[in-house]
């Protein structure tokens, strides 16, 4: 089983010492994100997220299928993640690593279980026909903080996506091509984002030697290999926690976790505004003709 190359002892010591003194290798502040970029494809539902050297593409597809028998009124919504050897030599094809399992579980909990997408709106004919929405996530380049970037890509792609319009007349269901009717956006309820905090042990501050946990945001791969534990908090801008996961690792003070969660809210609001702004730019860019703007039922979001 291939493994990621481990950093040398010198590298470890240097980075850890720097972090304790409040510096990072790339000169960022401890709670600063790398350069974030979001591009949409020509098609609807393709989002390309670049976060420093990490790059992720999410693509949304929709097709009409038969709903699950135990949930006849719900559509089907799946998120599939694939970490290919292209992203990092540590990943193998057809053999999910622990990273991949945790990533897909986190996305599942953040986006699917928190009901960000209204699956009931995907139902066409109860028990017989429904939309199946599928998000394929491809990691093109892995340089740390996969979780936050993936979540952003999935949310952006789903919000950008338009599914073909349909109509029901009596018993006949018609699915219109984009030429016949402008495709419609998904029924989107809220936008959750993941913020991952990476912990690096604690230092004593002040005269009474009070211990303070050190944490970083948006870690690079190198920093990720050196962290002692991590905590991922998923939230929407309304301050609703969708999911918190601190999967073991070195202990941190409960107070720190609470502090992190309120800071996460701040960051989530920033990310939320960023995605809103990019989506607005994209729709402006698409509606240059002005004709489509009239036909579109989309409200500015």
């Amino acid at each position, binding site marked *: 089983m291939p493994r990621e190359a481990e950093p040398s002892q010198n590298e470890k010591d240097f980075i850890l010492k720097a972090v304790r003194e409040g510096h990072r290798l790339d000169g960022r502040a401890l709670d600063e994100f790398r350069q974030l970029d979001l591009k949409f494809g020509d098609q609807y539902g393709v989002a390309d997220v670049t976060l420093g050297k990490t790059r992720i593409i999410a693509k949304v597809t929709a097709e009409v299928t038969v709903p699950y028998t135990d949930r006849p009124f719900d559509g089907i919504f799946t998120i599939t993640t694939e970490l290919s050897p292209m992203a990092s030599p540590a990943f193998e094809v057809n053999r999910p690593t622990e990273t991949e399992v945790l990533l897909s*579980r986190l996305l599942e909990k953040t986006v699917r279980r928190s009901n960000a997408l209204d699956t009931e709106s995907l139902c066409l004919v109860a028990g017989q026909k429904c939309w199946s929405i599928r998000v394929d996530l491809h990691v093109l380049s892995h340089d740390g903080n996969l979780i936050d970037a993936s979540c952003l890509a999935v949310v952006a792609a789903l919000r950008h996506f338009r599914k073909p319009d349909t109509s029901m007349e009596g018993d006949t269901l018609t699915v219109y091509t984009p030429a016949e009717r402008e495709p419609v956006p998904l029924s989107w309820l809220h936008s959750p984002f993941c913020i991952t905090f990476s912990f690096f042990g604690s230092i004593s501050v002040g005269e009474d030697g009070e211990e303070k946990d050190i944490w970083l945001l948006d870690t690079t791969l190198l920093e990720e290999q050196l962290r002692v534990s991590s905590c991922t908090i998923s939230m929407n801008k309304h301050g609703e926690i969708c999911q*918190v996961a*601190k*999967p*073991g*690792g070195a*202990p941190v*003070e409960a107070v720190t*976790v609470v502090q992190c969660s309120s800071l996460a809210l701040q960051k989530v609001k920033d990310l939320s505004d960023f995605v809103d702004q990019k989506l607005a730019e994209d729709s402006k860019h698409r509606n240059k003709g002005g004709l489509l703007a009239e036909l579109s039922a989309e409200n500015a979001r």
Partner: protein
Amino acid sequence: MPLDTSTYNLALLRVDGRRWNELRQQKGQLGVQPSADGSAYLEMGNTKIQCIISGPNERDLSKSTSSASTAPTSNGAGATVAVSIMIAPFATVDRKRRGRNDKRLQEMQTTIASGLAATVQGQSYGPRSTIHISLNVLSQDGSLLACLINAASLALVDAGVPMTDYLVACTAGSTSSYAAADEEADPLLDLNTQEEQELPFLTLATLGATDKVVAMVCESRVQLTRLEGMMATAADGCKGVRDFLDGVVRDKGELMVQEGAIGRGEVVSSMDLD
């Protein structure tokens, strides 16, 4: 099945008659399996777990393909902790068979493995050894992850693996669901299945009776403002669980002295005679 939360406000009693900060009845036993290196049986309410530990033994490379999740202790310089969970098909009300590649199970395995790795002093065994922890869920009624962690902790004590403290876990919920804007909701301790399905909750694992969070999992939507209250409640529960586990271990020690397995005041290392 919707849970009637209105009665809670009247009598302040939950569906099973507990108060908000009451743990369920717990039962623990050490050394239930003579052929294993360490074993424990733990009941929290109707959740029943049996934990078997084999090792530390030399890492079996041929077995690395199995579905167990692993985590190295003391920064890779110590033994590896490998955890595998088996949920009996008859554990839930409706019989359900789970595949071994269930992602939810794998996530729990990872959480337990790396959580225990934080407290196990594995450097005394060397990096090429593995401690296999296999957890059998015989009956499931809420707080599964918490019970698994507690059972594994107890079994590690029985196996004589050095640890800094017990790793203890507990769940805490919030009385009304996320839809209600009410931010003053009462927290609840140690949820059962019925409450878990209805209410937002989190699982918190702390190092002994301290406030140090080793693992924390929250899978439901909840207001940020309620997080602190839930965490505080869960941390209180963890203290209760720790006292209970400690009691189980002390009782066992007392029993061993009575039975003459070890003499009173003998050095601790002779505990291995068990």
